[in-house]
């Protein structure tokens, strides 16, 4: 197991995010985390990334706790994409992507040509090949999001935790990003956990789903088993209809 949580309890102040969550992600598995705004999806993801402490339970990355791994070693195993895209200082796209190489460099070494090759390859993967010299702050919101995803890919970790990776992306790049992450999961045996807002993407691109109901309750399991009309209606507080047909390889949920 690349990621394993046992009886993990997480809360923000008085608000419970999940209680006694058991979760395991193997190589190549893709997990969708779904829930309403404010349910604690980002908080849980940051906890899984070792960036904030849990209230209770155990968390293992590649069989080790974050404390045993240490910050630097953890950063070579686990990548985390946050939601913050503020950049107070100017920098080029290539510099931003090269930050992902930091955990692989020793204290005095500079980014090598091979680091630059890795960075340029992921820029091409994110459809940003001709933008490496652009100033990050002159990019559009969606372009900046793709730069951040490229930096995550450049980190080359076996576990990728991405908080709303599709934010600001157009339809084309939403699909392209999900296809790319799925392909990486299959090809390189990477475990992926994504905070998503569209259950249809979860159904189509993820193996398993974790639903946070906002009151500390959760549901987890294979997407086909967990995602149904009643559960999603309860999750979002809005009635949902499931549509199937010969035209759809996957069922489709639409809000009523």
């Amino acid at each position: 197991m690349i990621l394993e949580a046992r009886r993990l309890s997480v809360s923000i102040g008085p608000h419970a995010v999940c209680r006694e969550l058991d979760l395991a992600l193997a190589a190549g598995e893709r997990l969708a985390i779904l829930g309403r705004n404010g349910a604690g999806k980002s908080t849980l993801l940051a906890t899984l990334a070792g960036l904030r402490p849990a209230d209770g339970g155990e968390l293992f990355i590649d069989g080790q706790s974050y404390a045993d791994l240490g910050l630097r070693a953890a950063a070579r195993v686990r990548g985390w994409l946050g939601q913050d895209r503020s950049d107070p200082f100017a920098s080029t796209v290539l510099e931003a992507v090269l930050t992902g190489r930091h955990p692989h460099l020793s204290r005095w070494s500079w980014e090598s040509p091979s680091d630059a090759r890795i960075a340029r390859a992921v820029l091409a993967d994110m459809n940003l090949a001709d933008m490496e010299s652009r100033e990050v702050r002159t990019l559009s919101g969606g372009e900046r999001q793709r730069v951040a995803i490229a930096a995550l890919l450049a980190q080359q970790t076996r576990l990728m935790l991405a908080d709303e990776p599709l934010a600001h992306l157009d339809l084309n790049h939403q699909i392209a990003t999900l296809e790319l992450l799925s392909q990486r999961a299959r090809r390189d045996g990477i475990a992926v956990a994504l905070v998503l807002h569209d259950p249809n993407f979860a159904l189509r691109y993820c193996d398993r789903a974790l639903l946070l109901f906002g009151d500390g309750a959760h549901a987890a399991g294979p997407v086909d088993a967990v995602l149904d009309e009643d559960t999603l209606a309860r999750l979002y507080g809005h009635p949902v209809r499931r549509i199937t047909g010969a035209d759809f390889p996957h069922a489709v949920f639409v809000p009523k």
Partner: protein
Amino acid sequence: MPSRRRALLVLLSLAILAVASLALAAAVGSIAFDGDDALARQVIFDLRLPRALAAFACGGLLALAGSLMQVLLRNPLADPYVLGVSGGAAVGALTAMLLGLAGFGVPGFAFAGALAAMLLVFGLAHGDGSWTQTRLLLTGVVVAAGAGSVVALILTLAPQQSLPGMLFWLMGDLSQAVNPLPALGVLVAAFAVALPFARELNLLARGFESALALGVAVPLLRRVIYVVASLATATAVTTAGSIGFVGLIVPHLIRLAVGNDQRLLLPAAILAGGSLLVLADTAARTIAAPVQLPVGVLTALIGVPVFLFLLGRSQRP
């Protein structure tokens, strides 16, 4: 991202600038030599060079502290004085002057005041353990404002004859700097502590959580940076008063010229800040000789147009 070779070239050019500025400072002054070698040697080695070296050390310290504060607060408007260190030093120095202390009294009180402000801001901002950059910035600004009002109070109460000395100190004054060694020592030490963390500072400037996720020990690094920047500021202010502008503008000058990689920015800012202050101080003591102008006024007069020129140039497509 500058390559290593380009970084070395930039640093070499700035080192030449630094040496040239020191040589100029040693050669220029109100006394003209006509063949009197003994007098020339005495003036150069006992007066001008120590003062020029002190100016270099203070400029370097302020530029280093400014660069670090801007990263620590993730705010391009931050400068070495934003968190109240110079305010504390000013209260200390003016109190010493008000009490009529001479010699070591003024720098001693100034350093004590700077340390008190540093600890006060750290204690207050760190109170609940969260230590966000907004909380730190607000605490520092409030402490600086409090110190400012105490300074105004002292100026009001002070006897007439001590006012010029106080005002000179507040505007920055290198004529009291006779021994450059303490400031140079602190400069070397502060640089030696900061440089190994330069790449981690690059990540810190982009965001604390993302830096943490990339393996940077963020809470520890922020404390180290806060202490190093505060001590550098305290040393500079103790040596030469509150010289404005160097700490804000030099890091930006370097950023506009070579980018925001701290591995190059930190040493380049030290060399450029030191050179700028040496040149400004040389101008301050020669332009209206024998009257000496406050060097802080000249750093602003040189810095503002240079900065605006570079800013305008960089915004052109």
